[in-house]
């Protein structure tokens, strides 16, 4: 008899299946991927001011939307769809097979990573075409961008899987998860310039990853001169890495220890 397939190879198979399944749900593809672009269009058209020399609000907002995209396509999508899959009984069926939980998680990560990349490309393309956003030319900025996307999507995916145990039912999941994400977006300086928010909001936001992702994205897409306008008068790159890593570990811990396959 041959050996049981490895968790990694099954994870890749699952990723393939998840992508195919996702692509067939047209409404959710359009909604998940285009919603941030629509927001960018609205905010970019309404707020045309310059917030610092060489920095328009659209540019500031684009950085925030790319960071939020990481949260939307990862955390939000998973924390809503996993409880639905659980309610259907799809997860219980998987539990009854020799496929390990890690393969399921790998499959989800692949799906999330691909949809994030598509979303980022859409946002960047839109920003460049309509809002005069310029791509950085400094290679170091692209390096920062790469690890922000990797670490951000890992963090967002792990926390989404972990948070999927909170909603009691699939139908209620969206009502639990969406407000959390929207409030975080307000607090983290996605819709408003972060330094203009009340201090207590800034302090709350600093506990969660989104604030650090948005600030990190600003360090990529805004001129370095803008760093002095941040609350800490700098980009705080090291601190960002540490905080994202801590949340990643928390997410993985709860995903592995507490994941629920079954309603009861």
């Amino acid at each position: 008899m041959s050996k049981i397939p490895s968790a990694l190879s099954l994870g890749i198979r699952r990723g393939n299946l998840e992508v195919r399944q996702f692509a067939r749900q047209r409404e959710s593809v359009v909604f998940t991927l285009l919603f941030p672009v629509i927001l960018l269009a609205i905010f970019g058209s309404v707020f045309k001011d310059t917030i610092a020399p060489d920095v328009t609000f659209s540019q500031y907002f684009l950085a925030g939307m790319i960071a939020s995209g990481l949260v939307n396509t990862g955390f939000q999508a998973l924390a809503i769809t996993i409880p639905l899959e659980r309610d259907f009984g799809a997860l219980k069926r998987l539990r009854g097979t020799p496929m390990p939980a890690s393969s399921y998680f790998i499959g989800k990560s692949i799906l999330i990573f691909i949809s994030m990349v598509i979303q980022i490309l859409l946002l960047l393309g839109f920003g460049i075409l309509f809002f005069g956003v310029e791509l950085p030319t400094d290679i170091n900025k692209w390096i920062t961008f790469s690890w922000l996307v990797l670490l951000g999507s890992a963090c967002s995916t792990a926390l989404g899987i972990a948070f999927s145990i909170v909603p009691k039912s699939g139908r209620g999941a969206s009502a639990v998860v969406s407000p959390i994400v929207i409030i975080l977006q307000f607090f983290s300086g996605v819709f408003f310039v972060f330094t203009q928010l009340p201090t207590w909001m800034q302090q709350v936001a600093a506990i969660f990853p989104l604030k650090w992702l948005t600030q990190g994205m600003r360090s990529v897409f805004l001129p370095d001169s803008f760093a002095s306008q941040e609350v800490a008068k700098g980009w705080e790159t090291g601190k960002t890495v540490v905080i994202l890593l801590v949340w990643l570990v928390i997410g993985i811990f709860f995903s592995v220890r507490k994941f629920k396959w079954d309603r009861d």
Partner: protein
Amino acid sequence: MSLIEVKGLKKSYGDVHAVRGVDLEIEDGEIFSLLGPNGAGKTTTVEIMEGFRTRDSGTVSVLGFDPQTRGHESRKWRDRIGIVLQSSADAGDLTVLETIDHFSGYYSNPRNVDEVIHSVGLVEKENALIRNLSGGQRRRLDVALGIIGNPELLFLDEPTTGFDPEARRAFWALIQNLRSDGTTIVLTTHYLDEAEALADRVAVINGGVIIEVSTPAELGGRATSQATVAWRDGEITKSERSDNPTELVAKLSSHFGGEVPELVVSRPSLEDIYLEMIGGSHE
């Protein structure tokens, strides 16, 4: 040692005592049926054996393994069993073929995908999206996913719910084939005819306790129970219960000088016995 051994199994949900001390031994290669009415504790018992639910007390060994164990050993164990749940569903955006083919990749020694699709009668629907299948077709897909891993042990929780009569016959044939390939099968059902047609042994369960375990033919002392002999004597129909119906018929025959008017000799049907066992009334 038996393939499955359950001793003193108990499980409550709050103050609902779903399983109240069940003992079972299921042997290698047999078709074992758990027969009982709604809420009898069939699904609870089976899902504890499948490792889906925890037990309150008792011991359970399935293929020499405690289903509550987790980790890599449990993967190897799951590789050897197949499960058809009482109810399961998928989001439905994949085709029958894609789904079965995907699940086959989970196992070390899967069956051939086309053969499985053929054996559950879904060849014409193999490229249909799951969301477009009828209820009975979905159920056949469930069965396909239960057997794709070529299991040594197959659990079926009310597998034929929603099948039309022809599909049910085809399913019975499939199960008998699996058994002749050496698969051990644990089947829960409400249907007496299904238990009678398939099972080597039947356990009747009600209110969380096993009332009896025996072959379908001997259930409730059916093979040895008294026969009822009925006949017409003038204007009235008479009937008598007897351990020796042949003797009684011979006596009647000489009394009537040959043919006994409207003679009927009957034994209780499996259904009569079953309904009596679970405390229901017949007719």
